[in-house]
């Protein structure tokens, strides 16, 4: 693998960066937060991004995609992450879109993946349950077979972009024991299905999160993604790709936080000099710079490992998420410390990044989870 952007990737980075800069400065995120926007993002802006082709990157050409890879995907998520752009890339593209792309029947793809790519529909995947931590195969949601259909009961939490989603892909146990990969099944549940309730949650990072309640929700067999009982495997694959996309976002976010910290060090005067002239602070900034540089390398490597189906790809995914989790938290913590009292105020943007760092750290497994995974994959 080559850890350098080719010409097309450089052009993509330039156009996404300038789009995000023009259309979604951090003031926009603040406004959505202040107005308590029910969606937390803009359908119009999302449609524009789709028109530019960025929602199509990962999907195969026969499905209406561009047939590109994760190397391009992380370019988009990094640019979005810099300005905390909240459009539903992780939920609709990386989770729901990828699940449909990898496991959906031709009919499901036509009905749901096509409008996902065109930006006309937003879908998400609901797998998280209360107290499940990072174990994808745990949870109390069950699906019982009826004639030609399944009846689902259970409750999912912290479902990303669940509010306003046109359909929600739900993981539910159809056989086997809690914690087994085998026996989980993914069901696509359209938003108007009887027994489906979506309740808004308010999370520290101000993103669109929802509780999804399923009370005797009837879903036809044709809405199963992949095979019955094989949803665990599919979910795990989808979450791995989404993890790397999230790593791109985290890299962008920590780069912004680092730049904000560095900028403040050059403007804030105390003792008649800018505080960036103090060696104690210089060294802290230099250490954070190293973290950001190391993170960029592992994110690029993990993305390319997926694209090239590298035998070490899982190890690199674990490496990337462990590093991103630690680094994003460390950089934002340092930034708040160096911004001092200003960093503690709501008026200053850095707090948004510190909050998002924690939410991102805990999405798809935190640093400890991925270090444990790394060790197990290494055979110790």
């Amino acid at each position, binding site marked *: 693998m080559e*850890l*350098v952007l080719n010409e097309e990737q450089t052009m993509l980075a330039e156009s996404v960066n300038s789009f995000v800069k023009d259309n979604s400065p951090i003031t926009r995120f603040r406004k959505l937060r202040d107005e308590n926007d029910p969606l937390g993002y803009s359908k119009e802006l999302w449609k524009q991004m789709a028109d530019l082709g960025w929602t199509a990157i990962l999907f195969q050409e026969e499905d209406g995609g561009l047939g590109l890879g994760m190397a391009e995907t992380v370019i988009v998520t990094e640019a979005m992450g810099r300005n905390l752009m909240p459009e539903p890339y992780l939920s609709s593209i990386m989770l729901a879109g990828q699940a449909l792309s990898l496991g959906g029947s031709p009919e499901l793809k036509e009905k749901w993946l096509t409008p996902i790519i065109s930006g006309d529909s937003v879908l998400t995947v609901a797998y998280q349950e209360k107290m499940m931590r990072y174990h994808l195969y745990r949870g109390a949601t069950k699906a019982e077979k009826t004639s030609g259909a399944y009846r689902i009961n259970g409750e999912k939490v912290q479902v990303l972009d669940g509010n306003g989603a046109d359909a929600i892909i739900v993981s539910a146990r159809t056989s086997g024991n809690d914690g087994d990969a085998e026996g989980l099944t993914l069901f696509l549940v359209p938003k108007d299905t009887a027994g489906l309730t979506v309740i808004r949650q308010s999370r520290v990072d101000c993103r669109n999160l929802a509780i999804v309640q399923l009370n005797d929700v009837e879903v036809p067999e044709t809405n199963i993604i992949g095979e019955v009982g094989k949803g665990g495997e599919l979910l795990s694959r989808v979450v791995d790709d989404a993890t790397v996309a999230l790593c791109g976002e985290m890299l962008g976010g920590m780069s912004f936080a680092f730049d904000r910290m560095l900028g403040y060090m050059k403007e804030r005067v105390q003792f008649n000099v800018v505080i960036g*002239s103090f060696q104690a602070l*210089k060294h802290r900034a230099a250490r954070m*710079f190293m973290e950001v540089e190391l993170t960029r390398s592992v994110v690029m490597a993990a993305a390319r490992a997926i694209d090239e189906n590298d035998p070490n790809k899982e190890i690199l995914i674990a490496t990337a998420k462990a590093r991103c989790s630690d680094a994003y938290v460390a950089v934002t913590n340092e930034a708040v410390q160096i911004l001092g009292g200003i960093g503690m105020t709501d008026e200053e943007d850095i707090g948004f990044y510190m909050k998002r760092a924690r939410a991102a750290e805990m999405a798809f497994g935190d640093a400890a989870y991925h270090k*444990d995974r790394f*060790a197990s994959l290494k055979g110790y």
Partner: protein
Amino acid sequence: MADLQEFRQSVRSWLEANAPKTLRGKVTDLTFTYSGGRKGKPPHPDCIPWLNMMAERGWTIPFWPKEYGGGGLDKQETKILQEEMLRLELPPPLSGMGITMIGPTVLQYGTEEQKKLYIPQIVKGEIRWCQGYSEPNAGSDLANIQTKAIVDGDDYIVNGQKIWTSGGNESDWIFMLVRTNPNVKKQAGITFLLCDLETEGIEVRPIKLISGASIFCEVFFEDVRVPRNQILNRVDGGWEVARALLGHERTMIAGLGSRPAAPTAEDRVEAAAKKNIGLENGKIADEVIRSRMAQVQIDESSFKLTVQRNSDNMKAGHRPGPESSIFKIYGTELNQRREELLLSIFGPECLGWEGDGFDAKELELCRTWLRSRGNTLEGGSSEIQLNIIAKQVLNLPD
């Protein structure tokens, strides 16, 4: 193209016919490193004919100009030669500060006479060079050097002391910084001198380190007479030369190509942990150690990928990015953390100094751990590296 293929063919058959069979397959074995010189012992007797046959063609530094004894090869030919040497897994015939540091600096700053004198000797590995920079009161504050050179006719008289001179006791010549003007800004009164260590008045004393080894020396100068024509660049123009030398070192190491790493079936840390701690249900039985292992390996992988990103970036024709500024500090700190982790994994068995009751690996670990503490000091301490990043990369003010 046809010419290049012909060149490759001729290099291949010449190497196959002449390169010592005993050295083939030794490219990854770093003990097969030969720095030449009058005092140096080759790691294998055949290193000497290997050096001589390559030096005769100027191929110890294939891309240096022919008129000074270099190979005169262009980029593509150099690459072919390197590939053909790698094909037979031959170690480089010559390494050391002569070819990576002082040679290219003489080519840049030397007079015609100096180039004609020194470069052929460097190409042939006839003299081994060491670096006389640090002094007892000029470590991180290198410009503070006090070793004095005072003009006396056609000579300069040098008095003072250098310290932390790597390989001083095995070298023939020293390139050094001396104070020629004490009345100007520190950097502006320094001159770059070349000096034969056999000159009268020089004494080289090895320094015994905490690891028991003596890889560094003190070099004392008492009324040492150095002819004026051994000054590189102008008098008081030495600081510029010292800075240029650093740049040459990086480019030369890149240009000569790094030796491929020896294939290791299993990481040193993993092997040690399995032996000394053992697995329980497939996991290292000590959870805290297991977690430290994962952290060190994740950091190692991140570091290697960053080095790769830098090199891929340059291969693609871009200028080196800011990431290269972290290599020295991160690489050395990582090495120290790995050594410390190994101590924890070995437990009390790592404490052996010598003799009975400890096996060879245990005794070696104790020494490599102690040695590693110097990594963040030599070649610009970690604190200096952080200053450099802050100033040159982050543009933070003084």
